[in-house]
């Protein structure tokens, strides 16, 4: 039986409040992890650790926050934008994010904006209901 999406959101909100020291009302579904909530590399690790405990699943960090390894690969990034190969790679790694807007102008400085609270909810929802 699948977990209710709202229940998942509330649990994730608790995780983000603990990991990022933000207030509950700052954690909206549309909030971006890096821009709005101030998350950085060490916070991504903290978030992954807490999600693993909260949902009793293993979360390979790459699946949730693939940006770092993507950005370091010259085949995938050119002139500050993702190449076609880079986009394909991204699509494969983050099926839980909505890429339609980003694909029109795959500027890597906007990559961070993709990682919203909603994206995490979708990821966890997918993992829990995959059976």
């Amino acid at each position, binding site marked *: 039986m699948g977990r209710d999406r709202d229940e998942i959101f509330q649990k994730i909100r608790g995780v983000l409040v603990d*990991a*990022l*020291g*933000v207030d509950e009302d700052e954690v909206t579904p549309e909030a971006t992890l890096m821009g709005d909530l*101030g998350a*950085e590399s*060490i*916070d991504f690790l903290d978030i992954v650790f807490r999600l693993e405990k909260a949902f009793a699943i293993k979360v390979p960090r790459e699946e949730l926050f693939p940006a770092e390894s993507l950005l370091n690969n010259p085949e995938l990034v050119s002139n500050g934008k993702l190449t076609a190969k880079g986009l394909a790679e991204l699509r494969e790694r983050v099926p839980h994010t909505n890429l339609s807007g980003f694909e029109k102008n795959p500027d890597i400085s906007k990559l961070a904006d993709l990682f919203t609270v909603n994206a995490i909810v979708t990821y966890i929802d997918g993992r829990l209901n995959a059976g």
Partner: protein
Amino acid sequence: MKFVLIDKIVSLEKGKRLTAVKCVSLAEEYLADHFPTFPVLPGVLLLEGLVESASWLVRMTQDFACSMVLLEQARNVKYKSFVSPGSQIEYTVEAKAIDRNTSSFVGYGVAGGQEIVEARLGLRHFNLADRDPAMATVDSQVIQQMRNRYDLLSQQV
């Protein structure tokens, strides 16, 4: 060690914001242990710089009404880079709220244009006499000492 982790208060807007600087020098004894061959200011002393900055903002905003101004909670304190001897850190704290007995802040430290530390802080402030009236003299003594220290830090001496 001398437990004063800022050197000069650079600006202060009561109820709102304070900036201060701390110079890091090999003269600071703990650097010999932190670390041998790689002296850098310990992370908790960076946090203390922010706590002291926030404390001075409380004291000045409340005209030194409370003797005790203590860290009640620190959240999401992140260390982004190291500070070595010869560097100067600028701390900024911005008040979210300053109430009679509690206050909250966001703070950060920058050295050489680089972010060093950021934190969310909550302080609590009170007088010892609040619980034990016999301690009123101690409160006055501490407050006087802190007023003197403020004069030193704001370089009004």
